[in-house]
């Protein structure tokens, strides 16, 4: 069963705290992504990873960093979370040709 799994699904953090969002996929896809979704702004690419330790900034990387030590796992880290990082975060993966991108169910992060 092809799946992208995100943990946790819901998270509330205080401003200034560190946040770790985790993502796994079982399709051996080389490419993985982190997007955030805000009303009226669609899906914005934060980071893309082409394989282990091969990461690249997307359109809105400021305030985020990522880690990919295994092909099946891709983490998003917020060092010192800010209230404007309140959003829904989606992890996704695809094969190298990007013929289809599979999304996880998302993590709803609230920074208070």
């Amino acid at each position: 069963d092809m799946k992208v799994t995100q943990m946790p699904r819901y998270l509330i953090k205080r401003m200034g705290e560190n946040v770790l969002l985790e993502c796994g996929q079982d399709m051996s896809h080389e490419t993985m992504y982190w997007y955030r979704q805000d009303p009226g702004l669609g899906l914005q690419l934060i980071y893309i990873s082409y394989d282990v330790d091969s990461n690249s900034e997307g359109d809105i990387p400021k305030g985020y960093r990522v880690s990919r030590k295994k092909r099946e796992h891709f983490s998003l880290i917020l060092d010192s979370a800010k209230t404007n990082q309140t959003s829904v975060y989606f992890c996704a993966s695809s094969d190298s040709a990007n013929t289809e991108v599979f999304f996880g169910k998302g993590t709803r992060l609230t920074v208070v």
Partner: protein
Amino acid sequence: GDSVTQTEGLVTLTKGLPVMLNCTYQTTYSPFLFWYVQHLNEAPKLLLKSSTDNKRTEHQGFYATLHKSSSSFHLQKSSVQLSDSALYFCALNNYAQGLTFGLGTRVSVFP
């Protein structure tokens, strides 16, 4: 750079009516276009995809045709159902950075 434009932010219509959601794109690469559908509190899921010019592609009653001459990939359905209420995204494969998404069109179907 690559871009995708969806002109309608919200479409409201009555069950049984036809719908067309507009999507135009700009790219310097050979285009590969997608439509994703996202139901409330769910992940986006692939609905349609195409890279073939002037060929209609269909799935679950929805259809779209990629027209490279007009840089368009409009999504259509002849008779919408209540379950079609969702957010629809058009997306372009820019190869180097995955998918570039439009802002989305929310479709609300009423009885």
